[in-house]
């Protein structure tokens, strides 16, 4: 009834190629963005920023990065935590070595450094496929974290092995550190993530994205129609790592402010981001957001509901939360193996037919 595209004619190429060809989708996204940019900053406080919005947005960025590689190009990676560490440590080294450097440039440079590291670890993907590649990227995870922990240079010789984000300003507004206003941090990350998501959406619709998908679907056929696997796979690793590196940079710089390599960038991080894209939907930008929301927000939501709402003991709530999260993941994967993005799509199809399904 509300969601019907009847009467929306596309009479030029631009409207045919629009990101959201259906007017209702366009409006919906605009309203969400409007709320996120205009209304949320007025109401956001420390808790909402540090416990909810920042983790959601930053993990969404990392999930988009991994989705480009795994969901679109078909290369399984377990190195996300390691690549996030590269982004975080690049940020730390850059911002302590050049305190005057604008933090936006620091984040972009950290992404670029991670991209180059990602390409190096992507080279084996030309020979190794599937599960075997996952093991090869696992090596990246362990090697990178070990390296950052081992050599004092990366930590600026901090005796406790921690990295700390010093306070930084952009255009005279404090952006990192404990004194930065929550809405500033939130808006900064939101702008980054929105622009990156927009760019990702366009990359995957273009020539590069199509070549990735061709490789994913059948690499021999892709080669036969003239796609060079070397180029396609390495660009996928580069772009993916660029995103993951930026996510690592924001994760350390804006959200945590202090990190130690093993705990903050361990193998759990890699699995977490992989779960996000599996649950959210492989090969979908929207799925990256939905998956990140599910994995980061669901535990907090359940905890707050059970502890503050139902008044359960804290530890009981925690046990239920862990169990429920596992059950929910199983449930959603059985109901819809292609993730939330596919559920969303099905919902839209049904809405088109509603109230006369057939």
């Amino acid at each position, binding site marked *: 009834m509300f969601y019907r595209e009847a009467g929306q004619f596309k009479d030029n190429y631009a409207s045919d190629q629009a990101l959201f060809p259906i007017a209702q989708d366009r409006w919906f996204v605009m309203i969400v963005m409007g709320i996120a940019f205009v209304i949320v900053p007025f109401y956001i406080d*420390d*808790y909402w920023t*540090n*416990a909810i919005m920042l*983790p959601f947005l930053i993990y969404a960025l990392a999930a988009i990065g991994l989705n480009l590689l795994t969901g679109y190009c078909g290369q399984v990676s377990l190195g996300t935590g390691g690549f996030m560490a590269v982004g975080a440590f690049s940020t730390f080294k850059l911002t302590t070595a050049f305190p005057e450097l604008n933090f936006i440039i620091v984040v972009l440079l950290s992404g670029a450094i991670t991209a180059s590291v990602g390409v190096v670890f992507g080279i084996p993907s030309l020979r190794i496929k599937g599960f075997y590649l996952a093991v090869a990227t696992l090596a990246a995870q362990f090697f990178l974290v070990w390296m950052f*922990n081992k050599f004092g240079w990366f930590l600026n010789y901090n*005796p*406790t*092995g*921690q990295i*700390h984000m*010093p*306070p930084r300003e952009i255009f005279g507004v404090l952006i990192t*550190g*404990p*004194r930065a206003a929550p809405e500033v941090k939130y808006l900064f990350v939101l702008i980054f993530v929105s622009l990156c998501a927009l760019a990702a959406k366009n990359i995957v619709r273009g020539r590069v994205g199509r070549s990735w998908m061709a490789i994913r679907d059948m690499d021999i056929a892709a080669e036969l129609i003239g796609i060079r696997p070397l180029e396609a796979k390495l660009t996928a690793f580069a772009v993916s790592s660029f995103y993951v590196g930026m996510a690592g940079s924001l994760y350390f710089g804006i959200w*945590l*402010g*202090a990190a*130690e390599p*093993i*705990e*903050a960038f*361990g193998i759990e991080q890699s699995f977490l981001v992989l779960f996000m894209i599996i649950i959210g939907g492989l090969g979908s930008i929207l799925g990256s957001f939905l998956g990140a929301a599910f994995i980061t927000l669901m535990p*907090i939501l359940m*905890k707050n*509901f059970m502890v*503050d*709402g*139902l*008044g359960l*003991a*804290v*530890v009981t*709530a*925690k*046990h239920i939360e*862990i169990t429920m999260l596992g059950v929910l993941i199983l449930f959603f994967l059985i109901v819809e193996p292609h993730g939330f993005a596919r559920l969303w799509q099905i919902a839209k199809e049904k809405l088109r037919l509603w109230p006369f399904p057939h």
Partner: protein
Amino acid sequence: MMFKRIVGTLVAGALAAVFTVSTATAYELVMPSLDYRTGPYAPNGIPFANGYHDYLMMLNGRDGGIEGVPIKLVQCETAYNTKQGVECYEKVKDTAPSRSLIVQPLSTGITYQIIPKASVDEIPVHSMGYGRTSAANGKVFPWIFNFPATYWDQAAVFVKYIGEREGGMENLKGKKIALVYHNSAYGKEPIRTLEKAAEKFGFEFMPLAVDHPGQEQKATWLQIRKEKPDWVMMWGWGVMNQVAIKEAASIRYPMDHFLGVWWSGSENDVLPAGDGADGYLSGAFHAPGDTFPVHDDIKKHVYDTDKALGERDRIGEVLYNRGLIAAVYATEAIRNAMKIHNTKEVTPTMVRDGMEALDLTEDRLKELGLPDFTIPVKVTCDNHAGPRKVAIQRWDAKAKKWSMITDFYDTMNDIVDPLIEEDSSAYAKENNITPRDC
């Protein structure tokens, strides 16, 4: 239908709970407790959280709180995970009506995260014998306290103790001392002090890292078997402790030369190794056991009235008593704050003043039902680490009991003080803090 009914009940329950919470109006002292009763660190997190909880509940039951103002204990589960710790801190910090009066994260990683935030939010943090050592310098860290002693003091005292056992500090020359440490900010804390001490006394220092969570230590102990260090120190936590002590027992490392930090010396850590753990040593700053008058009050007001979260026979374990003494320090600081500011409705800022004026004498400890339990603590504006004294306790596997075997040792000021000064001034410089005058 069934589903709808369940959802309906849940929603109704939630709404009812929300409304009952918001009707409370009388002033309460909000004391958060960041627990971890799940995950690989739970064996150590549970007794500590129980001790903290029980003492506060006992005060509520016996005295109606502190000076008659009830305590509102807000628990939050961190699972010893830094990110969940940050979430918990943000959640509890502004709890009505008094805001969080004092935060005790019981995790060095979480403490590091909270230090800059709490200083801005103006909430005192007490990292009791853990966390950032250089927070001892109250001039740079006005909101952070780490009495009664720091990691660096413990490392220094351990070297002293080893020297004594070897028959004099000069005999340390040429000895080999290994450190088995949790590969995190926590475990790395003592390394610099021990390096300095190695330089000064001429022993060989051998750091051996164990990765989180510490269940896999075969390689570490193989190396110890090969290199045969004269002494092994341990900075471990959670399952890592049990595994290390078991491994040490299985390579027949002499337990009386194996010395754990005070976070590696509780019943949970040694019991799994059985008789093999007999004679294992660890640092301590308070007595073990449930023989103090305060424990009787706890049994009467908490366990007999079914308010307890733990089991009655685990009262008086080392970490239980540590949680208890943490609660004693916090409540005494609040009492102090009430006296200084002459009000019962204290705020976090006042509690900070109370912490800085804390002077817990033996007489006062006796009044609190803790005679000969620990050393007197006096905190000042520039010294947030208090007395900085450490004793050694030993495990008797037959009697299944810890007992203190030494007096309290003083730290080595010539090694530790310059390090604290150096580290805190580096922090001040990095974060544009001007040290205040004391």
